[in-house]
C-alpha cells in the first residue's frame, strides 16, 4: 500500500504547484528560406528575436523553408492551432495564403512583408528600400576603378528594378561614366546561378558587385574569392563574409516595428496599415569595411543623411537607358509608384522586362 500513499502524496503536491504561466502572446513566423542565410530571412529572425526580448512572456513559433505555396497555409494554420494570435508571413509569395487564412481567422492578426493586400486583420509592411540604395550607389561609384558595377537580381519585379535604378542614380552622381550591369537569375534563391551570375559580371569588368536576392552570401563569397568589392543587402551580418572586399551594405531593422505591432495586438489596438518606412527606421546602413577611405565614408553618410531628410532621387527629369524621358521635370515618383518600374535609368545596361 506504500505505492498508493506515494501516489496520493504526489497528487496533492501537484495541486499545490504553481500553474505554468501562459504566454501573453504567441507569435508565429514563416520564412521562405533558412535563418542562417546572412540575408533577408536572418534579418526577419533578428527582428522577431528583438521583439521577443522586448516583450517578456512572448512565445515565438518559427518555421523555416516554407515554400510560397499552399503548404504555407497549412503551416500557418498549425501555428494558429498552437495559439498564435499574430502571424508574420515574411516572404512576398506568402501573401495570398496568409490573406486566405486572415478571412478564416478574424481573431488572428496577420502581417505580410512586401505586398499590398490589407483587411481588418491583415496589414502589410516593408522597408522603402529604393531611396536607401542611393548612398550605396555613391559608395560603389567612388570605389570602382573600372567604372563598371555588377548587380545580381533575383526576380525583376518593379521594386527590385527601383533598387537598381536608385543604385545607378547614386553611382552616376559621383561618377558620370559608371555603368551598372544587371544579371537576373529568375529566382529569389538559386545559389548555383548566383555564383555563375557573379562570375559573369566580374568577367565583364565589374569590380564592385551587389545584389537583390534572398541571401547575399554566395555573391559576396564569389566576389571575395575573385578579389572584387562587394556591397551587402538584407542583413548587416553579411559583412563577416568579406573581410577584404566589404564596402558597406543595407540591413533591415524590423525589430521596432515588430515590437510595436506585438504590443498593439496585446493591447487590442491593432490597426491595419501599409507601412513603408525607409532609411533610419526600417533599414539602416551597415558599418563600412576597412577598404573605404574616410572621404568616401563622409560622402556616403552625407547622401544617407540627405535621403533620411526626405530627398527623393526619383525627381524628374529622368530618362531611361534608351533616352526616353520617363519622369518629367517637376514630377517625382513617390513610394506608391515604386512597384511600377519596368525601365532602367541611363547608366544601366540591358532590358528590364
Amino acid at each position, binding site marked *: 500500500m506504500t505505492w498508493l500513499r506515494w501516489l496520493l502524496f504526489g497528487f496533492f503536491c501537484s495541486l499545490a504547484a504553481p500553474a505554468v504561466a501562459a504566454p501573453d502572446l504567441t507569435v508565429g513566423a514563416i520564412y521562405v*528560406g*533558412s535563418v*542562417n*542565410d*546572412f540575408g533577408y530571412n536572418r534579418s526577419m529572425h533578428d527582428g522577431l528575436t528583438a521583439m521577443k526580448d522586448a516583450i517578456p512572456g512572448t512565445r515565438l513559433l518559427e518555421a523555416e*523553408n516554407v515554400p510560397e505555396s499552399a503548404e504555407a497555409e497549412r503551416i500557418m494554420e498549425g501555428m494558429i492551432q498552437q495559439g498564435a494570435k499574430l502571424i508574420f508571413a515574411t516572404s512576398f509569395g506568402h501573401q495570398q495564403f496568409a490573406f486566405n487564412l486572415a478571412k478564416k481567422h478574424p481573431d488572428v492578426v496577420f502581417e505580410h512583408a512586401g505586398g499590398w493586400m490589407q483587411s481588418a486583420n491583415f496589414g502589410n509592411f516593408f522597408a522603402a528600400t529604393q531611396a536607401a540604395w542611393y548612398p550605396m550607389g555613391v559608395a560603389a561609384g567612388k570605389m570602382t576603378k573600372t567604372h563598371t558595377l*555588377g548587380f545580381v537580381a533575383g526576380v*525583376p519585379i518593379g521594386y527590385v528594378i527601383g533598387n537598381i535604378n536608385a543604385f545607378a542614380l547614386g553611382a552616376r552622381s559621383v561618377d558620370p561614366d559608371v555603368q551598372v*550591369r*544587371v*544579371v*537576373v*537569375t*529568375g*529566382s529569389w*534563391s*538559386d*545559389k*548555383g*546561378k*548566383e*555564383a*555563375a*551570375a557573379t*562570375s*559573369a*559580371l566580374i*568577367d*565583364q569588368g*565589374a569590380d564592385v558587385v551587389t545584389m537583390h536576392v534572398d*541571401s547575399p*552570401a*554566395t555573391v559576396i*563569397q*564569389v566576389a571575395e*574569392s575573385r578579389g572584387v568589392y562587394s556591397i551587402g543587402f538584407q542583413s548587416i551580418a553579411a559583412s563577416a*563574409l568579406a573581410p577584404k572586399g566589404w564596402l558597406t551594405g543595407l540591413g533591415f531593422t524590423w525589430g521596432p516595428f515588430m515590437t510595436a505591432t506585438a504590443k498593439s495586438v496585446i493591447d487590442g489596438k491593432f490597426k491595419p496599415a501599409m507601412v513603408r518606412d525607409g532609411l533610419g527606421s526600417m533599414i539602416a546602413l551597415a558599418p563600412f569595411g576597412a577598404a573605404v577611405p574616410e572621404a568616401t565614408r563622409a560622402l556616403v553618410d552625407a547622401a544617407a543623411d540627405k535621403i533620411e531628410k526626405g530627398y527623393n532621387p526619383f525627381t524628374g527629369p529622368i530618362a531611361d537607358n534608351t533616352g526616353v524621358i520617363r519622369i518629367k521635370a517637376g514630377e517625382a515618383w513617390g513610394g506608391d509608384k515604386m512597384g511600377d518600374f519596368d525601365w532602367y535609368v541611363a547608366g544601366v*545596361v*540591358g*532590358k528590364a*522586362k
Partner: protein
Amino acid sequence: MNATLALAMISTTIVSGTSLLYATLGELVGERAGIVNLGLEGVMLIGASTGFAGAALSGNPYLGVLAAAVAGVAANLMFGYVVISRGANQLAAGLSLMFFGLGASALIGRPFVGAIVAGLPRLGAFDLLVWLAAPTSLLLWGLLFRTRWGLSLRAVGEAPAAAFAAGKRPDLIQYQALALGGALGAVGGAHLSLALALTWDEGMTAGRGFIAIALVIFAKWNPLWALAGALVFGGAEALQLQFQALGVDISPFLMNMIPYLLTLMILIFWGWNRRSAAPAALGRNFLGVE
C-alpha cells in the same frame, strides 16, 4: 568580345557542365543495365548536402566528395532493393527516391546552412572534379564497351533473360550498376555545393537532375556523347547569364528559359529516332525465368 572574355565563357561552360556530366554518367550506367532512375535529382541533392556536411566537419573538401559518393551509393542501393528485389515499378520508385532525397538532404544539410567551407581548390585552371570529368567519361565508355563486365551489364539491359540463361546474375549486375551510378550522381551534386556555389541550400540542384536524365537520351546512352551533351546544356545555362551581363537586349525572363527550352527541343526532335537506341529492357523488371 576579346580573347579573355571568350576564354572566360569557355571555362564557365566547362565548369557548369561538370556536375551535369557526372549526373548524366550516373544515370547512364543504371539505364544501360535496364533501370531508369527518376530519382536522380534526389541523389544529387543527397550528394550536395553530404559533401558539404563532410567538408564542413572535416575541413577537407575531398573527404566531402568521398562522403557524398558513399551517400549516393547508399541511396541508389536502397532504390535498387525496392526495384530489383521487391519488383516495384521503376518510375514510381524513382520519384519516391527524388522526394526522399529532397527531405534527407534538407535534414543532413540543416546544421550546416550558412557554414563557410573551404571549397575544392583550383589545380591550375579548374578543380579536380572538372579535370576528371572527361577522363571519367572515357573510362566509363571503356568499362561499358571494352570489358566483360560491361558486356554483361549491357546484356542485362537489352535482354535480361538471355543474360540469365548465359549464367549471369542480372540482379547482382543491376545492383553494381546502381552503386556506380549513385556514386557518380552524388559526386555531380557535390560539385555544385563544393565548387560552384560553396554553400548548401535546400533544393539547390534546381532541376539539374531531370536535365541529366534527358541528356542520357540525347547521348544515345553513350558516355562520349554525354560529354558533348553536358557541355551544350551546361553552356546554355552559364552563357545565358554571361549574355545578360554583356547587356544583350533580350528579356531576362526569356534568357532564363533557354536551357529548359533547349532540353525540350532536343527531346522532341532528336528523341524521335534516338528511342530505338535505348536498351531494350529499360524500365522493365526482370523477375526471373520460370
